[in-house]
């Protein structure tokens, strides 16, 4: 097959992936409400976006939940990975199986089972329950990012630190933590993005009064999405793109030096 055909094929697949996104971004600059007709360039949807209390509130909830859930999940998950690594074979196997359960469970079952739990224990659903749910689905991803780093670590450096007089706490901070740090950061970033994008689990674990962006979009989807949502997603898309480029640049700089 010629090189040209290969590239052409890749271009087509990427076009398929990007067309809806491009359409969405273009629509956010459309002066009219129509989704098909171009009625002139305008920034009015961006203006309305920042003046819409419901969207701004949902954005606040989404971002704070993603940050908090990522932070809590990273702490619990990293501790769990270190603990599981120190376990003997059988309990470690049990814990790993338990970690795999939430990852193989479909989102809708996770969401519904947590909803049942919150209703059963009479915890009113809202911000707090959504946060608990997000931490729950994030922890396994943190563990799975940290575990490989622990396995790569030299087994004896921790013991050497102890022999040289370090307390277990000191050795943990100065030997184990630095070597698993890349995994911890990957886990935290993964949690953050998973949390930002989650719809199904949030939908079942919150009340209609506390909405994140996904559930807000869902409740508006039937009425037809307003172009303000397009403006918001265009902004978020660009923000994430810049973030990625910055991280990539940092990584490649670190790689070169």
């Amino acid at each position, binding site marked *: 097959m010629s*090189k040209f055909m*290969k590239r052409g*094929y*890749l271009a087509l*697949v990427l076009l398929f*992936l*990007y*067309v*809806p*996104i491009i*359409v*969405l971004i273009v629509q956010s600059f459309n002066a009219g409400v129509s*989704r*098909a007709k171009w009625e002139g360039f305008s920034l009015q949807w961006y203006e309305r976006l920042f003046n819409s209390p419901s969207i701004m509130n949902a954005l606040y909830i989404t971002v704070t939940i993603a940050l908090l859930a990522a932070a809590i999940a990273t702490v*619990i998950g990293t*501790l*769990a990975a*270190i*603990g599981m690594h*120190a*376990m003997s074979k059988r*309990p470690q196997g049990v*814990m790993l199986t*338990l*970690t795999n*359960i939430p990852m*193989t*469970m*479909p*989102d*809708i*079952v996770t969401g*519904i*089972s*947590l909803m*049942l*739990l919150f*209703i*059963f224990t*009479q915890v009113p659903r809202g911000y707090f329950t959504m946060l*608990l749910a997000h*931490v729950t689905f994030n*922890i396994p991803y943190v563990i799975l990012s940290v575990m490989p780093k622990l396995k790569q670590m030299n087994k004896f450096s921790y013991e050497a630190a102890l022999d040289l007089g370090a307390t*277990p706490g000191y050795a943990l901070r100065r030997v184990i933590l630095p070597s698993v740090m890349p995994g911890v950061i990957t886990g935290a970033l*993964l949690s953050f993005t998973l949390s930002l*994008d989650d*719809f*199904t689990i949030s939908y079942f674990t919150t009340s209609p009064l506390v909405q994140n962006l*996904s559930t807000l*979009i*869902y409740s508006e*989807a039937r009425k037809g*999405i307003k172009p303000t949502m*397009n403006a918001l*997603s265009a902004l*978020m*898309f660009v923000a*994430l*793109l810049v973030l*990625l480029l910055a991280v990539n640049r940092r990584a490649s700089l670190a790689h070169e030096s």
Partner: protein
Amino acid sequence: MNNMALPPWASWVMLVGFMGFIGMVAVSIRRNRGVKRSLFAFPYGLWIVLFTLIPLLLIAYYAFTNKTGGFTLDNFKTFWDSNYEMRKQMLDLGVNPQDLGIARGNVNLDTLLYSLWMAFLCTLICLVMGYPAALFMADRSFKLGATLVVLFIIPMWMNFLLRTIAWMSLLEDNGLINTLLAAMGLPKMRLMYNSQAVLLGMVYNYLPFMVFPIYNSLSKQDRRLSEAAMDLGANSALTFLRVTMPLSLPGVVSGITMVFMPSVTTFFIPRVLGGGNTEMFGDLIERTFLSADNWNVGSALSLIMMVLILISLTLLRKADPEGEGSGTL
């Protein structure tokens, strides 16, 4: 009806459990003059019991009980026969439901079969579309390959609801595609509210999950193997069929897992892009819980879905025992 309070002894159990944990930590600190490292996993263990195991047990509890809390298998019978409750009540009243023309209702079973069929089609299309893409990107002579992989990840950052809704504006009766068709003087097409539109939305959302694992296993391959095949006289087609492709199978298996699992339980996409007769199993579960407010049947449906997923996972794990193709990021 479902407003069950926590039994009074539950808070005592929790309190005792918490005190026990504190005691265990205290004892282990005294014995080892330092916290045992395996205890670091304790908060997580507690978390998993509270927020994964107990919720799952709740689902199992509701699936095997009726509205008054007694043990029953009726919820599973309702899965097999969606008119089961009605027919049972009729029989209790001494009426034969057959006389009234009320036969077995097959809505639930049909929805499950439809979901499996759609997930199968979606996985197949993703594989057929994704394999060549991964293959071309993993090509060593193609320097942009690694950059292109990032281009596959970026769309996944846009909220998946919005991405799906964006297809609406392309496919609608007055949407972009139809406007273009009209401008070219062609008749309008009905592109939305059918199974094909749902399938399109699913493929669109899950395609990257097929491409990454395949790309991973292809780019990890030792290049010398295919070179050796070529040196020994195989042409490029034979090299691909006998060397490259078999070695990429773990990636394929993991791609199939990552596409098939979420697509069986797809929720939302059929509602936005599909019409009235494209409900999938995820939507059915949600509707049974929230609209019909029938937790018992809803739990039974969730259990059935989980069992199906566990079975297919076990089968797929057999094909890729080392989990080599995984590790997508």
